[in-house]
């Protein structure tokens, strides 16, 4: 991360994302941002991107953690995972886990 980003991050850290905006981002609100690649509600088939619908919370969280800390290299999932807080990642995990793996019976 270059110096400017680090400085900005510290500033945001000091002001606290929590104080800069009131309230928390819901799992649904956060998870919706994923759909452009991972499909609506995390349903996508035969694609380079993995489906998220029905993924276990544990797996979702460990994947996002691995992307964020670099132990799982990728193209852009690293920065994206870093941009969400642990709480938001947990909320997203819960959100995706509630969907059945198969969309209404189709494979």
């Amino acid at each position, binding site marked *: 991360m270059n110096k400017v980003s680090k400085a900005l991050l510290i500033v945001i850290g000091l002001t606290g994302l929590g104080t800069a905006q009131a309230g928390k*981002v819901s799992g649904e609100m956060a998870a919706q*941002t994923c*759909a*452009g690649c991972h*499909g609506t509600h995390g349903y996508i088939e035969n694609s380079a991107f993995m489906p998220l619908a029905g993924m276990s919370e544990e797996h979702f969280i460990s994947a996002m953690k691995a992307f964020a800390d670099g132990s799982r290299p990728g193209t852009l999932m690293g920065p994206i995972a870093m941009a969400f807080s642990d709480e938001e990642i947990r909320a997203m995990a819960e959100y995706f886990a509630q969907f059945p793996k198969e969309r209404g019976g189709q494979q």
Partner: protein
Amino acid sequence: MTAIERRDFLKLLGASTLAGVSLNGKTAFATAQPHVVVIGGGVGGATFSKYLRLADEGIKVTIIEKNRKYLRPYGSSEVITGHISMDDITITYDALRDKYGVNFIFDEVIGIDFDKQRVRTASGSNINYDKLVVAPGISFDFDAIEGLDQEIADTKIPHAWIPGKQTELMARQLKAVPKGGTIVVAPPPNPYRCPPGPYERAGLLAQWLKEHGNPTAKVLVFDSKNRFTTDVNMLQAWHRLYNFSIPEGARKLYTEEQLATMPDHLEPGMIEWVMGEMGGRVLGVDPDAMVVETEAGKFKADMINIIPPHKAGKLALKTGLADESGWCPVERKTFESTLAKNVHVIGDSSIADDMPKSGYSANSQAKVVALQIKALLAGEEPGTPIWQNTCYALAGNTDYGIFVSDVFRLVDGKIRRMPYQRFLPFDATEIQYKLSAMYQQNWMRAFTEDCFA
């Protein structure tokens, strides 16, 4: 009632005999149903409608759209180079209508009565709304370029920044470029739709020329700007693929070590980027003589692609939803217009601070606003928003992909980009570029499905 509204009304009556709420969005509520009207069936309008219906089938959603089919602008440059066809970028509204129960009125909006909360169409219908979402995309400021107007753009000097006849014109013009000929691509000044887009197009054109036995042809990029989104990656890619030498003014984008990996080519390159500080700004064009006038002088070319400066979509300008900047001011949390109550403006037309004008941004804003409007209609507080803009582009060669990836939050009343890496690193490996190119193709499909299917 128009014919379409009557049909919908009958559908609702029929559905009201069903017990409970079906998955097709036909609800049991035939009366006292909130009505959200959406003007514009592009990425913003479509995504919003689908997601609002997913969030609450009890809300009636109607899209008013001029065209019965949608030509997707993202990736449309690939039609020019023949990589895909016009059919490939043609999207129908069937899924929105049949799967999500979105109503459609194919008509043109000629006016909005903000007090009576009513939209008037060319065919004479008046459609009442509880909430209105306006997503009219972009329009062009032809006045800013001497010698350019709509008719000339349609026939001689296309921008093809909204796909259609101009896209097909560019494809024809490309095939007619003579050996050693010149193509001019003039990207617009900020802000504009799809920041890396014009440069991706320049790369695609260069690649086409290369593959079609015309490696001595040139693509001249005349720019009023000195930076563009993905410039570090794009210029590096062009250096590798098209003999591009980093111009003097762009050297400061790189470290000395990085510059050492990109020595000037001995041969002149296929692409040249004339930056704003070198006089790249386009002042005018002579369509008959095929001459572009820039601050640096006049240049004759065989094919000229000038993308004029952008403004909000015509409808937003006509109905007073835009301010002096030519863009629509909105309350950032809900994208409600600051100039009209119960009207939300999303997508390219809106002022969204750090968010670029892009398909993904429109899609992201649409989804946030769907949740916010659901809350507002239920008398609840809108939630804390978060947005994303993630999108892959080609550097020209279809094996060489790059991307932008952003997450945005509301900080002190403005939409701010979170400070994480946005692009591929300079030392990204070949497989990363290859994967990114593959992801680009997958992204097109996945993204289109998320908006329209």
